[in-house]
């Protein structure tokens, strides 16, 4: 299933097709979907992506923390997508962007969804500019 087939109240179907990532990017560009990645003074990276799901259009609000204390001899480490402590995931023209993988967790019931599962099943990636805490809207 691709973004062209998107419509509200779709039955549950797991999909990571690139078209959903493209659609999410278009929605971010026109402020339909919102997203932020914030790095705190302590170097802890957290993200929030909120707005309508690219597929089912139900409201989603995905909050994640991308830093964990994993190696007690070496301090804290960045999760998947991050290059390491204090290092952004990638650079583009001097600006650091951080990849965030989002799965629809809209909370609305979708036909055929496995028990205990929320969302319509679609997952997509957004790459958001890292910003220091307090520089804009806080997730």
């Amino acid at each position: 299933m691709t973004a062209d087939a998107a419509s509200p109240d779709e039955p549950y179907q797991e999909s990571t097709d690139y078209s959903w990532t493209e659609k999410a990017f278009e929605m971010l560009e026109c402020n339909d979907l919102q997203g932020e990645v914030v790095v705190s003074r302590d170097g802890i990276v957290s993200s929030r992506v909120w707005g309508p799901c690219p597929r089912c259009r139900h409201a989603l609000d995905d909050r994640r923390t991308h830093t964990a204390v994993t190696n007690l001899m070496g301090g804290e480490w960045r999760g998947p997508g991050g290059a390491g402590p204090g290092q952004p995931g990638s650079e583009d023209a001097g600006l650091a962007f951080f990849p965030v993988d989002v799965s629809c967790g809209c909370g609305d019931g979708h036909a055929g969804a496995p028990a205990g599962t929320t969302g319509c099943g679609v997952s997509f990636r957004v790459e958001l500019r890292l910003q220091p805490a307090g520089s804009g809207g806080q997730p």
Partner: protein
Amino acid sequence: MTAGPVRRARKPASAPSKSDLDERDRYAKLTAGSMDIVRGSAQAWRTGLTAFITLVTTGVVIKGRDTTAGLASGWRTLVTVLIGGGLVLAVLGLWLALAAEAGTDPKKQTLQDIRAIHGTLTAYEVYLAAKAARRLQWGRRTVAGAVTLLLAGIVATWWAPAPAPSPPAFITVAHGHAVTCGAPQSAGAGQLRLTVHSSLSPVSIPFSQITSMALTTACP
């Protein structure tokens, strides 16, 4: 020339794979468990560091005063500084390890306060875990310093030279058919005066009667 608007997002080169999503979910569990990981580690470290310190300080206490009492003044000062400094560092290090395990500075906070400062509750937990991990790291370093100082103090007692023997303070005088031992008081007017243990007043011995004299460190 002015800079263009700052881009908030860019188009990803690829979509997330199934394994990317699995890894993301596993990492989320790791993030949420950061505090438990650090506190568990702090507990183990505190127990281990306490055993270290107990072992070393027990040796110091057992040898303690007997060892240092016979040291020259300079060496005794050095050993006191090393062992005293080691004990202070040991207490500080164990305090830091305990603080990492049990936490300090409890205060009331609302979820909104936490979100305003840290973004998410999990980010706050990671912040606390990172703080505890830093404390634990400093605790380990401090206890390592303490053990080093304590061991250096013990080694210093092995290498410290024996104190210089006391100079002879008594004199044994043979006069006539008698021998008198005592601390010299004065000599003059043809007489030597000694303070003798068995007599309250000084004993005077005429020089003319003295047949021999010898210095000694103690009287019989």
